[in-house]
């Protein structure tokens, strides 16, 4: 018992301090200057810049949040960043020109979109080996793994499909035609739905996961803006399955969507050419990577206000948040 007491006593001040303090750390991939920007969620300031391989875009945190994986497209590899030291500790093979990848929920495998080869590569992270390749449509981009780890999604931009891949045997199960230039895909956390964004039509399509029937088709518009500028790119769903936040590219807006009724609730004005978005772990904030203004916007989701923009590297593209 003395040991436990001591541990509690030591931890107590720390726990108190953690209460009101926001410990989020935001990682942003900057595709034009080959860096990762690290932003502190408490002070909302840039605290560190980590050099990585060329043209970094897709980035994912390991389940234990100690490792950040970054796809370096022009170097044909995925850089592995050890977060405690803030240094690139090694790399994974990825197949040619990796743009986006998704990790299996247990963190053992990465599924990589090889844009130039019309392939999805499955990479075993422990052995650093490509264990399978699945041919998909032209310009694969958006990748997602179902929360149970059994299904993998890949959007192919020029083919305009979302491909459904069985993770165990790495076989193609289905191909769903969607609107022009699909960019991003996700499973709802209850696993019942597949969401896909289409850039050129500026829409989101929602499918039932099992029947693969269309459940909803969501259109976006910004008052007074040319329809062509309203393009749907990255998006994120919250854990409760009540909201989707959708980056609308060159319209410089993020849409908040009711994920049950599929109604667009509001638009947030953010930086220029918003590519991707990520929620804070407590889901009270949304961070957006704004490609053309080289900054990120911070949205307070309780007050529905954009509270800050923070300069990062050049061409911010992807964003990930660690607690």
């Amino acid at each position: 018992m003395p040991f436990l007491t001591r541990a509690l006593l030591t931890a107590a001040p720390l726990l108190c301090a953690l209460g009101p303090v926001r410990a989020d750390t935001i990682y942003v991939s900057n595709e034009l200057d080959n860096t990762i920007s690290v932003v502190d969620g408490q002070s909302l300031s840039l605290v560190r810049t980590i050099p990585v391989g060329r043209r970094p875009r897709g980035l994912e945190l390991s389940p234990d949040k100690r490792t950040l994986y970054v796809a370096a497209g022009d170097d044909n590899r995925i850089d592995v960043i050890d977060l405690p030291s803030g240094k690139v500790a090694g790399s994974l093979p990825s197949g040619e020109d990796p743009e986006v990848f998704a990790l299996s929920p247990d963190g053992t495998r990465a599924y990589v979109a090889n844009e130039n080869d019309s392939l999805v590569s499955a990479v075993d992270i422990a052995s650093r080996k490509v264990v399978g390749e699945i041919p998909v449509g032209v310009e694969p981009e958006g990748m997602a793994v179902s929360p149970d780890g059994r299904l993998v999604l890949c959007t192919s931009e020029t083919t305009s499909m979302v491909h459904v891949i069985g993770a165990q045997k790495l076989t193609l199960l289905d191909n769903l035609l969607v609107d022009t230039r699909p960019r991003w895909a996700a499973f709802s956390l209850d696993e019942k739905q597949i969401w896909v964004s289409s850039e050129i039509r500026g829409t989101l399509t929602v499918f039932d996961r099992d029947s693969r029937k269309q459940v909803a088709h969501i259109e976006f518009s910004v008052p007074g803006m040319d329809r062509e500028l309203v393009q749907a790119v990255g998006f994120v769903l919250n854990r409760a399955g009540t909201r989707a936040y959708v980056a609308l590219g060159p319209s410089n807006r993020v849409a908040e969507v009711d994920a049950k009724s599929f109604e667009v609730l509001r638009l947030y004005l953010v930086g220029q050419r918003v590519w991707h978005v990520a929620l804070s772990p407590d889901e009270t904030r949304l961070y957006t990577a704004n490609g053309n203004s080289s900054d990120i916007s911070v949205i307070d989701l309780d007050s529905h206000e954009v509270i800050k923009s923070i300069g990062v590297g050049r061409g911010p593209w992807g964003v990930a948040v660690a607690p």
Partner: protein
Amino acid sequence: MTAHRWLVLLAILIPAGSALAAPPQHTILVGYLGQSRDPPLPVGPLDEVPTDQGLAGARLGMADNNTTGQFTGQRFELRERVLPKGGDAADAAKKMAGAGIRFIIADLDHDELLAAADALKDTGALLLNSRAPDDDLRQENCRAEVLHVLPSRAMLADGLAQYLVWKRWTRWLLVTGPTAGDHLYAAAVRRAAQRFGAEIVEEKPWTFRPGNGRSDTGHVVLQTEIPTFTRSPDYDVLIVADEDDRFGAYLEGRTERPRPIAGTHGLVSTAWSPVAELWGATQLQNRFRRAAGRWMTAVDYAAWAAARSLGEAALRTESADPATIAAYLRGPDFLLAAFKGKGLTFRPWNGQMRQPVLIVGPRLLVSVSPQAEFLHQGDDLDSLGFDRENSSCRF
């Protein structure tokens, strides 16, 4: 837009673990009809003259279609024919139609294109023009059998004019080369000046013989001749019309006044350029370079977009039927994603593909027209070229 389940039935029938079998094949035949041309004389030592311009773009577009086709059961087959000089385009087009080809990517010049179009009248075949920029083909000489994928000269000139007027470089010195194409380009520049409020302060015809600049002392001659030649009332920008790349490159650094050069050289308006990298263009550039071993030109891009338009229409209509595909191409639902930031569509009044025009320098993209300041009551892209109101095309 309905989602579509292509392969669900097959997925059920195939035992788990086997690779997903190819769905039943429906073949869509596409012709490529090109013609032999004299290769242009290189102006400088860095110039590379591709011999497969257009064809390489068509092949890549078809390869893209077939990658998609493996999931939809559609197979695209390219039948290639390149006419010898003076070859009979009408006969070649008829033979293609006779062989069951209903879509022909026409990498043909003006006269050959018209001959092919007239030969295909009432056959139900469709030509996709990927080479001829002539405005009359979109106006008085338009044909119902032709869709134009390449922008017209008027679109190129309008795109450039919008940018120059936005810059307030509105006084132009127009230098026109000797070819018929150069004169037509100059006519498009005059029309653009009038439409967007620029003034042509003087026009000069270029009459020097091509190739002289490459002789050993050529630079000495050019250094003295070009300042004299470009002497004129003050202007903001020199616009050069030299479509065959015979002399335009000589002007830079030699003009009487220190003024920028635009048009076919210097600041160029074009459908495509190796410098394009926005909107995912890098992906197309990489794919093309890997396949063709060189940079992608505007003609390659037009042939690629022609092939891809057919692929997109076949995908969306789930059909290999030529009439269905052709109707969809012309209809309101067609939209091609083609790395220009906006979906591309065809104008119903003359079959011209609406598209942004790139304004490029030798190494980088400078701008993309239409410029946001030039509003249009309908589609901003219709501020380039011949709008419905000023169309004289009657199918």
